[in-house]
């Protein structure tokens, strides 16, 4: 277990290193933000130098990178190019909103996909199984941003039930969560079904049934707990994709999370903000995966013993 965790920790650190290097490199490749910032106004070379100095752009790549990583660690992520707000504060405001969307979408999708997936596995090959398969294939084929637009079309424009954008109140949460929830459910149903099929053929299930246990107990207590490990693993693997999806969907609904922060930063070439958003999200994704590896050890004693 210790070796397993150590390897995972090593991988996590390395991934974060690669992401930060890529992001810093990309920003470096962007050319001279000072010239861009000063664009349109008459500036002297001295002014440009001052801007570069103020932004820390006069330092070497190594020094800039060290400053960027150091800032990430201490939480001082510099100031936005636009208006000079502290990037740390902006991220602290946006991150919970993004995590909330991601978490709720995941919950909705689990609430839907576990019973549906179990049903499909138990009635393998039946009408319900085939119907669930087809519907999940259709769900998988939806571009998330288009599903979001279609929901706006139906629930905001045609029916007028839900606000098309913003983050005020419960009603604003429904459509973003629905969008991601539906798409996640399409994948998760298949995962639950496959994992259940494997578990249901195990001998202890036959034993549990022959003991006369009720079907619900057999399925939800004996089978589902044993499916937990592959399911948790897959959910961990998906988490990066989930965050990527939420970021895109945020844009459609003007949800003031990390995605909106990032795209506003893109539009105004506000690199400190973009750098911070991408790095923080990458760290969150890596942490979630690390956490799942820990859970893995708790859920499955075999991993610990190894």
């Amino acid at each position, binding site marked *: 277990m210790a070796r397993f965790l150590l390897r995972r920790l090593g*991988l*996590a650190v*390395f*991934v974060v290193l*690669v*992401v930060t290097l*890529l*992001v810093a490199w*990309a*920003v470096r*490749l*962007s050319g001279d933000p000072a010239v861009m910032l000063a664009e349109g106004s008459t500036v002297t070379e001295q002014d440009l130098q001052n801007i570069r100095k103020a932004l820390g752009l006069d330092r070497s790549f190594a020094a800039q990178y060290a400053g960027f990583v150091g800032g990430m660690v201490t939480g001082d992520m510099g100031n936005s190019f636009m208006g000079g707000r502290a990037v740390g504060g902006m991220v602290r405001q946006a991150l919970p909103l993004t995590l909330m969307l991601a978490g709720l979408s995941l919950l909705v999708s689990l609430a839907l996909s576990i019973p549906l997936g179990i049903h499909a596995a138990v009635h*393998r*090959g*039946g009408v319900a*199984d*085939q119907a669930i*398969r*087809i519907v999940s*294939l*259709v769900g*998988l*084929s*939806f*571009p*998330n*941003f*288009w599903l979001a*637009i*279609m929901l*706006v*079309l139906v629930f905001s*424009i045609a029916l007028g039930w839900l606000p098309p954008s913003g983050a005020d109140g419960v009603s604003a949460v429904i459509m973003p969560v629905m969008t991601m929830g539906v798409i996640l459910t399409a994948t998760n149903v298949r995962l639950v079904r*496959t994992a259940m*099929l494997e578990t249901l053929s195990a001998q202890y299930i036959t034993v549990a049934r022959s003991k006369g246990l009720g079907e619900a107990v057999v399925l939800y207590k004996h089978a589902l707990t044993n499916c937990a490990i592959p399911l948790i693993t897959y959910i961990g*693997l998906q988490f*990066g*994709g989930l*965050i*990527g999806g939420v*970021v*895109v969907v945020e*844009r*459609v609904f003007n949800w003031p999370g990390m995605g909106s922060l*990032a*795209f506003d*930063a*893109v539009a105004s070439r506000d*690199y400190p903000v*973009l*750098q911070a958003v*991408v790095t923080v*999200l*990458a760290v969150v*994704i*890596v942490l979630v*995966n690390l956490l799942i590896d820990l859970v893995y050890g708790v859920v499955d004693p075999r991993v610990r013993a190894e």
Partner: protein
Amino acid sequence: MRFSRLRSLEFLVGAGLTGAIVLAVVCSGLLFPDGGDAMDLAMRLVPPFASLAHPFGTDPLGRDVLARVVVGGQISLTVGVLSVAGAAIVGTFAGLVAGYYRGVWDSILMRWADVQLALPFILIAITFAAILGTDMWKLIAFMAIAQWVQYARVVRSATLVLREREFVISAHAVGVRDPVILWRHILPNAMAPVLVLMTLNVANNILLESSLTFLGLGIDPLIPSWGGMLADGRTYLQTAWWVSVFPGLAIMLTVLGLNLLGDWLRDLVDPTTRSET
């Protein structure tokens, strides 16, 4: 019996959808010689099914939505197919060599695959696209770089098994050279999972390309593309739903067709998850 009929129906629908869309897009130059760019300001925002000349209606500049949807498919299909081809070629080669020779390069490749699969690629794509700008070729290169390890992994694990098989050992024993063994004996037997992965990844990359373009980080908005049309159409959602509905439907049907095909292929290759009774 009922099962196999449904299965072949799935295959038919998948192949039919994909085939029809590919055919229409490939022939788009013949079908719509103006490239979907012809504007007719007198015919702005014509609703769909109202006029024979514009069965899907027209956009705010009076351009035919059907023509733009068909022409716009060129971008998505090109990006999807070429990025997957690039990733599959590089990944298959790497996987074959790593699996066959093992050794240090194999370990390095597998460690790197772990790292790459853990990277949040959409976020990195957004960063690079935002800073460096994108065109079709950058998108294709980016997706190929992001995905080649998937193929390397699949091919490597197949190669590991195949290299111990009798036919490979005997080929080796009679003096067949390694490149020939890899090309003639191992590769054909390792191709099945690669084909499945390719089909599903074309679908995935079409989704990825259209989201990036929708966000303004992909294809130039002046070139007709599904993502770009959706971005334009959003502004007119209140008054002209069709401008957003049809390009999205095109993405969805293409991806659905490919997913159906990929699924059918996967069941053909790997019967364990088949929904047989």
